[in-house]
């Protein structure tokens, strides 16, 4: 088992390196000259040259890439400025350290992501479960019709509608501002409520449909019939012979969805003006701030790759059939 984990982590490093290189080459090839960008409007050829040599832009591309990697592991120097490890460079726009930009914005994104995930799991799984048990009833049909509709509403539309109705018209919620939890828990909750809902709705609808169909399938499994023939009933049969088999695959899907959440966070954070990683990504792309784009891309890749490993490990723990094969 330990060997399996180590082998997977080795794989993770290789994949991340590949993503790094790929991203680096794309931005190197496709972007306008960073030196010109940094130099700004009042610029002389001499200044551009000196910026080039400070950033190492006159080196061969692979040397630059090597420097970039070394900066992450050991830190690096830009002329007189020392950038401590993990060094992701400095923003072309604000001169801030990219690493500190990431770390200062991560808590906002994590709050949005985790809150949304809790919401969509609760709503999706419980809704789907009730639908499955009350299959074919009025509740089931309404819930599933809503779920079908909910999947197809783009989340930026939902965000704008909610914001208009709840903040502007009815004024029941404040404008989202990402306050700290400790300062004012109520404001914190009210601020994040809309982002959570917006990010969660689509997933909740998907999960409701998924849970419903998985539970219904499980209820027609032979082992569920066996459990009934054994005289089991109530919560026990539900938990062991319906929910456990029906929800295990959902746990896997959840891991993947959660790891890939940055895409959804990008839109949600931008619409609500929350200063998270998603908004950082959107801003840096708009302004062609290469070090930041690079860092955000790597972070997203990192989450997806790590998420994959975690999902595999969790699945191994949850499904005895897989567990024995890999042990």
């Amino acid at each position, binding site marked *: 088992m330990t060997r399996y984990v180590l082998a997977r982590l080795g794989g993770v490093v290789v994949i991340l390196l590949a993503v790094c290189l790929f991203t680096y080459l794309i931005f190197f090839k496709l972007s306008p000259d960073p030196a010109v960008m940094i130099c700004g409007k009042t610029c002389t050829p001499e200044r551009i040259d000196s910026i080039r040599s400070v950033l190492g832009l006159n080196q061969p591309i692979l040397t630059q890439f090597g420097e970039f990697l070394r900066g992450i592991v050991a830190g690096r120097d830009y002329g007189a400025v020392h950038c401590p490890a993990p060094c992701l460079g400095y923003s072309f726009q604000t001169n801030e350290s990219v690493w500190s930009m990431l770390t200062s914005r991560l808590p906002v994104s994590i709050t949005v992501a985790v809150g949304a995930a809790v919401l969509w799991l609760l709503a999706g799984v419980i809704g789907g479960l009730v639908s499955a048990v009350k299959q074919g009833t009025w509740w089931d049909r309404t819930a599933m019709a809503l779920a079908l509709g909910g999947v197809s509403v783009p989340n930026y539309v939902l965000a704008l509608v909610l914001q208009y109705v709840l903040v502007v018209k009815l004024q029941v919620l404040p404008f989202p501002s990402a306050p700290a939890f400790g300062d004012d828990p109520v404001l914190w909750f009210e601020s994040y409520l809309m982002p959570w809902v917006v990010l969660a709705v689509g997933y909740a609808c998907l999960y409701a449909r998924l849970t419903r169909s998985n539970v219904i399938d499980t209820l027609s499994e032979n082992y569920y019939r066996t459990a009934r023939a054994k005289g089991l009933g109530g919560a026990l049969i539900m938990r062991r012979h319906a929910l456990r088999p029906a929800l295990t695959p959902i746990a896997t899907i959840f891991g993947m969805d959660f790891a890939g959440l940055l895409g959804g966070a990008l839109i949600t954070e931008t619409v609500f003006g929350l200063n998270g990683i998603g908004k950082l990504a959107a801003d840096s792309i708009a302004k062609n701030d290469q070090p930041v784009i690079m860092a955000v891309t790597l972070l997203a890749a990192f989450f997806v790759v790590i998420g994959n490993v975690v999902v595999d490990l969790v699945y191994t723990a949850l499904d*005895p059939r897989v567990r024995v094969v890999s042990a």
Partner: protein
Amino acid sequence: MSDELFVVEDLTVTTSTGRGPVDVVKNVSFTVGRDETLGIVGESGSGKSMTALAVLGLLPRGARTSGSVRLDGTELLGRSDRELRPIRGNAISMVFQDPLSSLNPYYTVGLQIEEMYRTHRGGSRKAARQVVIEALEQVRIPDAGRRIDQYPHQFSGGMRQRVMIAMALCCSPSLLIADEPTTALDVTVQAQILELLAELQSTTGTGMIFITHDLAVISSIAQRVLVMRSGDPVEYGTAEQVFSDPQHDYTRMLLDAVPRIDDEVAS
């Protein structure tokens, strides 16, 4: 009459299909005495499983029943799920056709037997574990103390069916219904399982309903035989009657389809 363990009278099962209600079991009557085995034979789709499921109230959604099913004089038909639970697995238990899909892949076989035992008998997990080990030993699973903590996929087909039988017998039911328990197994294993069932049945004194489409199997194990065809009871009588002097063309046809091994097996 009162010495009959299990009596079914005029059992009719109606399922609802897209084309309206269909009687998949029609006016079936039979009895099973203590210590006795009834064989139910018929081709695929003749309503054998529906008959068995009706007894325990496990029919698919939308199925309706009429008639009477009595265990020790107590009527079972038309009882609610809740009322039937104490009977299922306890007084009447069932072994199904496909042992792999009939066991939950997420739990050890030990737990799946234990949960049933404790549902009916209560007691601590530790005490139940001992009972489960004994039940597994009774169906001759070697190294039962270790096997109890393994998952269904770690067992061979024959071993899984032994697990199912151990489960079915662990609460000492008065009636065991085996619905084609050997169909999914290969021939040598089939013979072992049959032998085991016959032996356990005679030592425990459990009444048994043995469902199959194989007359040869019935002849070796059953004292009474019910032949079914598309829901109708075609022929019913003692094994000798049915085999030596079949009254119905359909039974004769089934008998002709059997290579004449029934004499050997019966002896």
